[in-house]
């Protein structure tokens, strides 16, 4: 159904983009005003010591040598050790620790977005210009207009402060030690694997607000795209033919319309994954969740360059991979695209 050649071609096309991405990150950090050696050595270190640090980091080498080394390291996902945030820990380890936190948040957010956005979009299209349609459209527009760093605080104030129903921050109650049962790094999964029901409930309760905040945004985008794509498909001749053959309108919509209408929706889901990662940075800040979003913000503030490099490249890599996934799904849904 889907040719290996197509996937290989897409993978090859990724290489120049990823090299470009790595080069951009390299230039950004070299243009930044901070001095990495001084940051590590500390403001009051002797000049000699600062020079030693410079030497050990290879900062005295010509720029193209540094660039080559950076590309080679980036290809192996080696970014050295964190300067400040977690000294003597490799960036790889730090990321391995924090990435699942962000992914879990993005995953649940996306799940909420897709599971609500698609049905709402279809409903809106099928019942075009009804009250349901108007409410969905206005709701979706409001959904993409409300910033996460406003809806988040408001939900915290309502559900946590006023109603006292849900926790306000973190991933799980501080009473539990999740590190002890760590398998995947996703708390909602790890607690289930360990069979700790109390912990699982706590993790889910912590996830509800942040995931909903991200989910609403994603739902809004998906339902908008689903609606307009479905409207376009409904007008196609093959839909009229199906109805003329005497098929019920519900079956027609779902059987013939859905698959074709999904193609642009999948693109939106992919593109919007980038927004989701950006949203994760804000959501993690609002809900005090220690993922790679908050890590990046902290690393930029204190000048922990290896962490900045690692996180930014990870984000870009993830985003590029998702877009590759979108391309492949695309070609499964519409084999003509391969040509």
């Amino acid at each position, binding site marked *: 159904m889907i040719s290996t050649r197509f996937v290989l071609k897409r993978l090859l096309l990724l290489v120049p983009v990823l090299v470009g991405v790595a080069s951009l990150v390299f230039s950004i950090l070299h243009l*930044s005003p901070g001095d990495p050696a001084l940051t590590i050595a500390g403001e009051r270190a002797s000049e000699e010591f600062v020079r030693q640090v410079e030497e050990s980091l290879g900062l005295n080498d010509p720029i193209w040598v540094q660039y080559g080394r950076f590309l080679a390291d980036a290809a192996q996902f080696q970014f050295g050790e964190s300067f400040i945030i977690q000294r003597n820990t490799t960036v790889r380890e730090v990321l391995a620790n924090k990435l699942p936190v962000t992914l879990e948040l993005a995953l649940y957010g996306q799940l909420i977005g897709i599971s609500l956005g698609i049905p709402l979009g279809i409903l809106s299209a099928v019942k075009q*210009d009804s009250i349901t349609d108007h409410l969905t459209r206005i709701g979706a527009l409001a959904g993409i207009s*409300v*910033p996460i760093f406003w809806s988040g*605080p408001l939900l915290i*104030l309502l559900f946590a402060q006023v109603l006292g129903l849900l926790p306000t921050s973190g991933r799980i109650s501080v009473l539990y030690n999740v590190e002890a049962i760590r398998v995947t790094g996703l708390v909602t999964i790890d607690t289930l694997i360990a069979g700790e029901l109390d912990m699982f409930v706590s993790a889910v309760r912590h996830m509800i607000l942040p995931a909903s905040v991200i989910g609403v945004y994603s739902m809004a985008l998906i339902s908008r795209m689903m609606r307009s794509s479905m409207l376009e498909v409904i007008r196609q001749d093959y839909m009229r033919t199906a109805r003329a053959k005497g098929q019920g309108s519900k079956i027609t919509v779902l059987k013939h319309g859905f698959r074709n209408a999904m193609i642009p929706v999948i693109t939106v889901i992919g593109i919007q994954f980038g*927004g989701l990662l950006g949203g994760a*940075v804000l959501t993690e800040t609002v809900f005090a969740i220690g993922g790679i979003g908050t890590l990046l913000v902290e690393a930029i503030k204190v000048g922990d360059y290896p962490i*900045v490099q690692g996180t*930014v490249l990870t984000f870009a890599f993830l985003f590029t991979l998702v877009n590759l996934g979108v391309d492949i799904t695309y070609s499964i849904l519409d084999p003509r695209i391969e040509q």
Partner: protein
Amino acid sequence: MSTETKTTTETPAEMGERGLIDRFRASPFVSRLLSNRLALAGIAIIVAMVVIAIYARLFIDLEVISQSQLGTNPNRAAPSVEYLFGTDGQARSLLPRVAYGAWYAMLFGTVTVAASTALGVGLGIIAAYYGDVTDNVIMRTMDVLLAFPSLLLALALVAIFPDELGLWRAVAALTLVYTPRFARVVRGAALTVLENEYIDATVALGAADPRVLVRHVLPNCLAPITVQSTLNFGLAIIDLAALSFLGFGAEAGTPSWGLMLSNGVSQGLLTGIWWWSFFPGLFLALTVLGFNLLGDGMRDALDPRMREAVD
């Protein structure tokens, strides 16, 4: 009778102007846009925000609303008749601060959108017109910029600029982030325009490249550019606030919505002081909603296929 005398006294310039307005009204794009109630609501919100912004800039003294009012005003007072939006941790009334935030949002939002539009339009048109290597170099660079989630690229770029620039570094970072979107849209539109025979005719008549691009290609790409700019306006205002919220935008003490929200979250949330987050966020969300409503309406008006589906 009176109208007759009026028209005869009109200068040619005035007549030209009237002709323009009539042409504007008669354009199917404008009439479709003005018959869209949601788009009108968007325009109303934007106009209201612009009025608030200009009023704040002219009549509110930035120094006065930035100074601590401890001892003069009640500290952390909840909204009341006297302090409509309540007071903050330095006893400053929030109402004039939130109003002044509209000025910041509009000013920096406009600069960001204008700069990225100009840059993107230039690159897009050049890529489309010269094609080949030029096209490839420009568009592949744009691809690299598009490979990053936008807010994260902005965060990384902000680090290049010195702190002293305050909100301007957020503007610079976001300009670079948004440029590729405009370049793509404009390149696509320009390629279509370039296929027209009148372009070949102009070139054959010996028009120089800049003249062809500015006089003939650009005007025919204006519609998609305008829609993209409007939709991007809302995004720019959110992202500027987001960067301030994360600590990479407005300097401490500036009455920007993002900074006020950051303060509301870090200090007001656990103490239940809802008005520190509520009012700045409400204004921010309303402004963005206004631009999204208008942008959506413009897109529908430009691409009437969606409308025809109704009929």
